[in-house]
């Protein structure tokens, strides 16, 4: 069994890029990552990649070189990036390969995602009656969560304001204009209690990571970041997930809680040791709920942490330092890898204006996607 290191990262800025295909953005990120690792595509022995709306990821071989490698396409909703990385992790950890790539890119049309009921095993009626919307799920989940934990909804705009503040410091982010909590609160209502600026939007962009056996890392970089664990989980009976026509009467822990717990355990790291975290903020409420579901804090503790500034870049628990999904948008294939990219940059100490102070050593990522899947990583220097 080999440990895994990330020795090269590349990213095409997120946002809207007219005239640039998703695949071209993917090739750009791949070349950047290869350059960062000081290798060529011919050195890459395998790849796992995802793209939901910009063609199959493995079409990239036409751009990067027809080298005959094992290149597997991954489709796992908003958790696609996390799943690609999990599979790349296994390929190295198992001893099958020494050097590989996890890559994701996408280019979604403007407007909300429009999911097809049949893709999720649901009848046409679910879409015809106006319930096939992820936005509704997040709104209902946070509405009930605020009720259960007696949390004031005002914290939702504070979370979004932080995202845009951090995005303004990130040259790769889409939304680089800070917004005040008041502007966020008073923007168009999407699904009560969530307004327009509390939601991320489908977007474009690409991220590539070069991974290798940890004992080979010094060949490629002086600043390896170790992938201590990468765990992906799906839903269990009793959880509340997106696109669920019915739920069990009692709630149990969801895929986020299981993936996070297992990732921390596999890494031998406690949530309290995390110096910087990127967690799924499809909307403000998701960040709020995922903070506790991942074990980074207790349920109900979030408003104190957020409103006292502890989740800011200079706080004790910096969250979504690159602006998260809210400021970057969500190109599905790349989104989970963006989080890992940000943590690698933070652990290397090269995050520039948004660098977390104090030489962060332990970093955590979490993605969540339909129909109830989650992937988490623990990274260390």
């Amino acid at each position, binding site marked *: 069994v080999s440990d895994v290191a990330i020795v090269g990262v590349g990213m095409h800025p997120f946002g809207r890029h007219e005239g640039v295909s998703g695949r071209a953005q993917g090739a750009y990120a791949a070349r950047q990552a290869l350059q960062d690792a000081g290798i060529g595509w011919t050195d890459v022995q395998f790849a796992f990649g995802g793209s939901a709306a910009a063609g199959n990821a493995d079409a990239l071989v036409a751009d990067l070189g027809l080298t005959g490698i094992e290149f597997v396409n991954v489709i796992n909703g908003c958790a696609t990036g996390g799943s690609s990385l999990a599979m790349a992790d296994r390929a190295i950890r198992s001893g099958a390969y020494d050097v590989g790539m996890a890559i994701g890119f996408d280019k979604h049309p403007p407007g909300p995602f429009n999911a097809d009921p049949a893709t999720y095993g649901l009848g046409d009626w679910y879409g015809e*009656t106006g319930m096939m919307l992820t936005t509704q799920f997040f709104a209902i989940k946070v509405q009930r969560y605020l009720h259960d934990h007696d949390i004031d909804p005002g914290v939702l705009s504070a979370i979004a304001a932080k995202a845009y503040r951090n995005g303004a410091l990130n040259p790769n982010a889409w939304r680089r204009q800070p917004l005040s909590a008041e502007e966020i609160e008073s923007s168009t209502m999407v699904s009560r209690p969530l307004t327009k600026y509390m939601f991320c939007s489908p977007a474009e962009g690409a991220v590539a990571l070069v991974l290798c056996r940890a004992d080979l890392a010094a060949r490629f970089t002086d600043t390896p970041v170790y992938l201590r664990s990468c765990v992906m989980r799906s839903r269990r009976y009793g959880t509340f997930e997106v696109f669920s026509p019915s739920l069990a009467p009692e709630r149990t822990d969801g895929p986020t809680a299981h993936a996070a717990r297992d990732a921390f355990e596999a890494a031998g790291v406690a949530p309290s040791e995390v110096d910087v975290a990127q967690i799924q903020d499809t909307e403000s409420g998701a960040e709020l709920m995922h903070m506790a579901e991942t074990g980074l804090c207790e349920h109900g503790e979030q408003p104190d942490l957020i409103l006292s500034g502890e989740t800011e870049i200079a706080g004790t628990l910096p969250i979504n330092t690159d602006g998260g999904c809210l400021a970057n948008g969500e190109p599905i294939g790349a989104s989970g890898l963006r989080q890992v990219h940000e943590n690698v940059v933070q652990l290397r100490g090269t995050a520039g204006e948004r660098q977390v102070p104090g030489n962060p050593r332990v970093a955590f990522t979490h993605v969540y996607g339909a129909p109830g899947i989650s992937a988490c990583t623990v990274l260390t220097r």
Partner: protein
Amino acid sequence: MTSTSSIDVTAADVTAAGGRLIDAALFHVAGDAVALAGSTCTACGAVTFPVQPSCPRCAGDDVESVALPRNGTLWGFTVQAFPPKTPYLRADERPFVPYAVGYVDLDHRVLVETRIVTEDPAALSVGDEMTLVLEELQRDGSGPVLTYAFTPVAAIAPREAS
């Protein structure tokens, strides 16, 4: 639970309206009584909606179709404030009319996701008593297309009294 028999949905209502149910498989019709159709696992008792051929809890494949309770309590909700794209049947509705959606806890056997018929979504709160109704989603060449929905018992009671 409050009885709301006067607005109970009946097969006769559907027929009288000249309408069709959006998906007959969602409904349990016994005589004149219409309810939502769920499935119960004979091994562990888990209930699902809609009917499915095996149990998501214990993976048993011996399930029975059952009529779900018509009354329940509101578990969680939101308001859909922008027009969904097709296949939403009212995707072309102008002006768009926001609608509430949520989950209703049916006797603590199962929580069902549903549209909520209410003129005042801002008045909804967790724990509200809800009852099953049919809602006209669209009117096509052959008459109204009806789906299930729940409505707050409190909202209909005064109208019944008058």
